[in-house]
């Protein structure tokens, strides 16, 4: 059974560092990402690198505000966290259409922390507890 914090207290948990990392993260803090903002984007995969310390997806998707196509770098957890969350190293390839829910970088650069991915076949995967859950549909 996994503890899921009620949505109301999520911002508080982020503020005190419970979900955003603290000493328990292996690699780095997720603080550069705007944890108060989640956006949904659909687009085409242009790259998928299965490696540590993080798996990365490259994605061409329209910007939610401007509609302009941007090239995004989407940060995922480590390979073992993703394996334990149900992912598989070869489940994505360039050309795949996906939908992601992400928290973008606070500095406006086109990179984001993944919260949830939906594959072309409809399967959904989270990005593990440290990255946090999607709070939008």
């Amino acid at each position, binding site marked *: 059974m996994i503890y899921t914090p009620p949505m109301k207290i999520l911002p508080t948990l982020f503020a005190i*560092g419970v979900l955003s990392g603290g000493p328990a993260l292996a690699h780095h803090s997720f603080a550069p990402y705007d944890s108060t903002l989640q956006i949904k984007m659909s687009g085409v995969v242009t790259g998928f690198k299965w490696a540590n310390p993080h798996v990365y997806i490259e994605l061409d998707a329209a910007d939610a505000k401007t509609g302009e196509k941007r090239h995004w770098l989407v940060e995922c957890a480590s390979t073992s966290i993703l394996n334990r969350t149900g992912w598989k190293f070869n489940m994505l390839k360039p050309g795949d259409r996906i939908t992601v829910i992400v928290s973008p970088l606070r500095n406006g650069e086109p990179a984001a922390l993944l919260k949830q991915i939906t594959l072309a076949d409809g399967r959904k995967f989270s990005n593990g*507890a440290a990255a946090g859950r999607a709070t939008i549909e």
Partner: protein
Amino acid sequence: MWLRLTLVTLLAAGAVSESVLAQSSAVRGINGSWEAYPLRGEGFGSGVQPKTPVKAPTPVPEPPLKQPYLDEWRSLQARNAELTKKGLPPLSTGMACIPEGMPAMMQATFPMEILETPGQVTIIQEAFTQVRRVHLGAKPVAPEDAEPRFAGHSTGRWDGSTLVVETVGIKESVRFRNTPHSTNMRVTERMRLVNDEILENVVTIVDAEYLTKPWTWTWMYKRWPGYRIEEYVCEDNRYYEDPAQRYQRLKVN
């Protein structure tokens, strides 16, 4: 039984000492894969609670540092928290893909494996593929002879059903929770099974130069039968130190 027979054969051949035999006469039941307890959430472990609930240990307390180290430590923690709040997380060894070392590697960020073999207990932490070797029944390494290492130099003995491990020679740059230490720091761990599923590790750090008293806390691990430790090589690190503001920054393009 085969283990003891093998050891007796080796003893007869002069390949192992009697003290090693005494320390290795039985596998004590901590062999296998373990995950942090309380469980850490989706992706970190099995998600399966133990059959018998065990009270979670209290959090690691503030290090009992001497002055002026305590004030320095508190202001560093406050500054780091402030920077993190602003989205400019301070630099860390983890960001640079430097392994956690001792004692942080024993907090079991990711699952770990314990291997009991004659004369040695080996502990493998999945994150950064960290390995430490505990030499059973061996003479403790004097701090002045201990080449500084991330995992230090560990010797151990079974005290009844408790594995007592002493570690010295931890690099000064390896700072658990940003806590400074001297080359004479000694970490003592007392590991014992609370029940068949839960392993307790009581950690005590002694360092006369930096600490006013021993710094102690308990970590717990839950057995994860059948879990195979995964590979973790930091081959594609896209984080770097922002040259102007000295914080963790992602290389986007």
